[in-house]
């Protein structure tokens, strides 16, 4: 089992194709009194009515919602990026949303969340790259590790689509390579009260 980070302060997760399945393995493992905030970017189409938060909430004890602009980030809550907006972490540890250009054809972008979170949380941050068919998240995970945080990557051979975890590993050879179940266990332990 991978070594736990010393004083975790937050978790960020990025996922694309196959995200719902992967998150449905991880998030239900997190208890209602989880000690860390979890911020997630899933690549979704830009429609206003997105059901991801509701679908996940139905399976989880931990609270799942879409992040709102200028909301303060609270432990024990999962914040999903809304469709068509980047989800960012302010240095004040509030959420901010932005309409900035798509990055690597994606808005929301995993790199944008990871880079802004790395800047705000520094060495307490755990970044997780899951299944997906592009290379979003690789640069962001690099930023997290460079800021002293920890990187976890889904084992590519267990991923619904391998390109994204593979790209993350290429950019971050020191990241831990784990199955979804192992990632769930790692996060659960990191956020145990």
């Amino acid at each position, binding site marked *: 089992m991978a070594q736990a980070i010393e004083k975790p302060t937050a978790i960020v997760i990025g996922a694309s194709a196959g995200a719902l399945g992967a998150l449905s393995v991880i998030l239900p493992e997190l208890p209602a009194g989880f000690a860390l905030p979890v911020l997630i970017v899933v690549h979704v189409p830009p429609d206003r009515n997105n059901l991801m938060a509701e679908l996940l909430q139905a399976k989880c004890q931990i609270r799942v919602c879409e992040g*709102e602009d*200028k909301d303060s980030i609270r432990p024990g809550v999962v914040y999903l990026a809304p469709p068509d907006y980047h989800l960012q972490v302010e240095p004040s540890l509030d959420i901010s949303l*932005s309409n900035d*250009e798509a990055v690597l054809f994606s808005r929301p972008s995993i790199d944008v969340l990871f880079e802004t979170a790395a*800047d705000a949380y520094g060495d307490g941050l755990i970044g997780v790259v899951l299944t997906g068919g592009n290379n979003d998240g690789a640069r962001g995970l690099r930023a997290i590790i460079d800021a002293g945080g920890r990187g976890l990557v889904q084992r590519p051979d267990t991923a619904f689509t391998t390109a994204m975890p593979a790209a993350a590993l290429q950019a971050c050879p020191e990241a831990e390579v784990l199955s979804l179940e192992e990632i769930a266990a790692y996060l659960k332990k990191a956020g145990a009260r």
Partner: protein
Amino acid sequence: MTVEVPAAKTDDIEIRLLLEAVFRKYHYDFRNYSSASIKRRLAQARDHFGCASFSQLQDKVLHDGAVLRELLAFLTVQVSEMFRDPAYFKAIREKVVPHLRTYPSLKIWVAGCSSGEEVYSLAILLREEGLEEKAMIYATDINPEALEKAEAGIYGIDRIPQFTQNHRLSGGKSSLSDYYTAAYGGASFDKSLRSRVLFSDHSLVTDAVFGEMHLVSCRNVLIYFDRELQDRAIGLFRDSLGRKGFLGLGSKESLRFSKHSDAFADFSRDDRIYQKLGA
């Protein structure tokens, strides 16, 4: 006794100083914008200008006014679409327009109009609803380049399918192609659409109230501000609106955290349209 304050990161110090310099020298005030976005965009600008640090960029912009104009393109986000978020325009058409009809003349303010997409959308909507003749649209932004584009009203032809679809989804009663002609790879919007539009430079951060509006549409601008600045802008809208005037925001903006929320009532909640309370 000394208090241990963690040292600020060097680039954060530099960014503060750079924004202060831009404000002091050029009166563009980005000091209270959300910092995550500003920082990313300034990093792009730094690389674009071939500077090794934000301090170098500060030196450059202080001594060369031409750099400012280019820097503004990084500091302000020019992402827009015609009839962006069609449900919003549908709500304006179906719910707000019936109220607007009751006034003898109309004043509408599009704050943060970017390159004009939102302005032309409203002008088309007003024409379709037969309200154009009695309306005046005030379209403002701080980015001079965006305002020039807005006045020109020419958009890439590749953007037209999206605009057309949005227009249709917003309940458009005519065909968007009635309003533009194709020219030089662009779609040039009919200049009669801007005969009732006044474009001007106005900052929600540093400038004053605009009088007696019936509708203020300010979309995807407030998300770039911190809470305090959002409050300033919303205060401006409150004071610019007449009794029972309407305020429309972007789909991820709300009055929830504002100290002025008491001055407004939800009018069409999901569409982020508010109505100023009468008093």
